């Protein structure tokens, strides 16, 4: 183990939490040991211009004495990654406020992370149960007679919990699950905040579908076999550029499935097209 002499050391001990920041000067590592026995040392800052031992050797030597300290290399230029044993490198000088706050960030980062997402994940699981069976009110957790303000407050609370920006640290599977949940929360909110949509929803009339799979071919518009056949012919005629024929087929298809709005709409559309 390297035993740096006091003269060689330009270390700054920063017990940031507590006595404040900045105790600078030559420090004997034995003193550091004694000091750290009594108080918590949060950071060790070593300047890069050490002749001997190297800053890395010094920090390594002191690591045993200061097991909980963030090891920070202080440099003249910005350094990407100082490597072991340093937790980070900071350029100096920078504005005091920036330096102090950067040291504090490195101290926080050097500590073992206590982040535990199990609570959130469990909550997403529970919330996601039978997502499709729940009413908009159940999704938002509000009473059927809730006011618009209650609805909005519930939406805001849930958004703050489950919006993708809030769950970036989660694994991908959990985020995907949370997104499905959040999309459902949003859909519920948008129906319940609109007086018209809410009234229709309460009356059991589905609001205009928002994620319905739309028909892709003309035939998809109908379930009546004869109508489907003529819809198919209409589409082929249209692709061939024969609009009159397409219209004729569509009209016939409409007689086979008279209540079909989609067919009617397509018919109007085609008739109106230039």
């Amino acid at each position, binding site marked *: 183990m390297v035993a740096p002499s006091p003269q060689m050391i330009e270390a700054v001990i920063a017990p940031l939490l507590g006595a404040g920041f900045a105790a600078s000067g030559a420090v004997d590592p034995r003193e550091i040991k004694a000091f750290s026995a009594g108080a918590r040392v949060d950071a060790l800052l070593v300047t890069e211009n050490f002749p001997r031992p190297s800053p890395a050797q010094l920090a390594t030597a002191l690591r045993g004495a200061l097991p909980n300290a963030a090891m920070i290399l202080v440099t003249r230029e910005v350094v990407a990654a100082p490597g072991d044993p340093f937790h980070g490198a900071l350029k100096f000088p920078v504005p005091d406020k920036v330096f102090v706050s950067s040291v504090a960030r490195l101290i926080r980062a050097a500590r073992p992370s206590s982040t535990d997402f199990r609570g959130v994940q469990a909550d997403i699981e529970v919330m996601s149960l039978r997502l499709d069976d729940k009413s908009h009110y159940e999704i938002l957790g509000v009473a059927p007679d809730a006011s618009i303000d209650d609805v909005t407050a519930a939406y805001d609370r849930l958004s703050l919990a489950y919006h993708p920006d809030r769950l*970036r640290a989660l694994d991908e599977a959990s985020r995907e699950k949370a997104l499905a949940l959040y999309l459902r929360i949003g859909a519920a909110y948008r129906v319940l905040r609109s007086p018209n949509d809410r009234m229709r929803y309460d009356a059991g009339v589905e609001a205009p579908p928002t994620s319905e799979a739309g028909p892709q071919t003309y035939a998809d518009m109908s379930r009546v076999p004869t109508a489907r056949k003529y819809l198919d012919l209409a589409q082929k005629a249209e692709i061939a550029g024969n609009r009159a024929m397409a219209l004729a087929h569509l009209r016939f298809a409409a007689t086979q499935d008279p209540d079909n709005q989609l067919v009617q709409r397509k018919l109007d559309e085609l008739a109106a097209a230039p």
Partner: protein
Amino acid sequence: MSGRIVGIDLGTSNTVVCAVVDGEAIVIPDNEGQKIQPSVVSFLPDGRTIVGRQAKSRMAIDPLNTIYSAKRLIGRPFYAPEINLAISKYAYQIVRGSDDNPKIFLRGRHYSIEEVQAIVLRHVKKIAENYLGEPVTRAVITVPANFNEAQRDATKTAGQLAGLEVLRILNEPTAAALAYGYDQQYRERIAVYDLGGGTFDITILELRDNVFEVLATAGDTFLGGDDFDHRVAQLIVDSFKTEFGYDMNSAPGAMQRLKAVAERVKTTLSDQPVASAMVKQMVPGHNGPSTLDFQLTRERFDQACMDIVQQTFVVCDEALKLAGLTSAEVERLVLVGGSTRIPLVREMVENYFFKQPLINVNPDEVVAVGAAIYGFGLEESYEPSEDSGYAPLTSGDYSRVSGTQSHASAPQGRAPLLIDVTPHALGVATVGGYVDVIISRNASIPTRMTRSFATSVDNQEVVRLNILEGESRVAAENRLLGELVLFDIRPAKRGEVRIDVSFEINADGMLNVTARDTVTNQIQQTRLSLAGGLSAAQVSEMMQHDLPASAF
């Protein structure tokens, strides 16, 4: 441990970088104390680049190799009308690349617009690193609210090329609203009127404590301060012609000089009733330069530019209509962008909204401040600190109607949350030249919609879908966003393969497409190529090469 997340307002004219230090947003100055960097890149003969003020001063000296307003070009295909307009107005050379995207050709090399923007981003990244004393690798970058998918994507690519992980693309007006309302416990509706150098955006938001919900947004990507400059430059050309009978439009490089003079005149008129400028120009057949003593009163300026401001109100009407509000129902007015310093703009906007704008907001800095605050918030929810970590969550019994019980004690903290909207409708071209609208305009994001597609011939291997962007039901009247290809479809009789395609617009306003065969429940391969965007291969190719070195 990664360094701080910075917020970057990558503007048409200027770029600003900001970071949160000790809970306070600091607009980061360069070595000379300047907080605003002109978004100008000048290429030196040795291939190195200079950015910012020094580059701006080279606009008149070396117009062919000095690139400005690249933001107006980014993410657009070469055939876009905006590119055409730029070719006629800008001094540097814009050419068609082999990928049909515009490229800038100078000193014998082609540069993509992404690379030019990356050079600007790298410049402010260095300024931030120098100030913060550690590497900056993550950023939130702002874009105009009406930027489309390709423009957002290209901006993100520029960030990557500059060595930045772009955590979030944020809309500029939303960022401005955040800077105004963060941690203020406001509950009100606000309008953010953002008239920058090259773009105009209007966004209506509802602030509910730290939740910022966008109600509507609208904009015009070719309306801004440059239009005022060009109007003033034209006035100079007119008086020069009257006095000397010579059209300066025909003199090479003259318009570049005039643009700079016009900008100075415009800026002077923001605090003086009259501005003057001496314009020298060599006129063929005259001995020595002819000098015009140009004078412009604010009144004359106002007359000449009124219609530019008027155009913004057409866009405002549109946004208010989408939000279902009248201009009087907006409770607060925030002005953003350097052009809102023009007295004419302030006056007309005040009259339109029937209220005084907030004055304690710096229109040049507010967007970057908002971006930095949001970046800080993302980090807080990314790396929860000991005291603001996730509280234990309680789960209610959701199987019954649960009344007003509290659902979850959410990890709220102080981090703000933005709920934005998508500025354009997105649809698929259908048979007969129509559009099947999949995601409507002004939908809250993230959003996801699913459509089912079937094969139409036996053993069809590929389905091609044109993705359109715009509000018209007629396909030809919308912009082509790109092509979605479903490929390697399993062989089957026509109509037997059904593929559910999910169109998701994420919180960044970017489109993700996933597809699933509904019969086999297998993931279906898809490929989405955007018009005006770079392919993934092009991006990784570019990542292999360093950007041109900086001269400083």
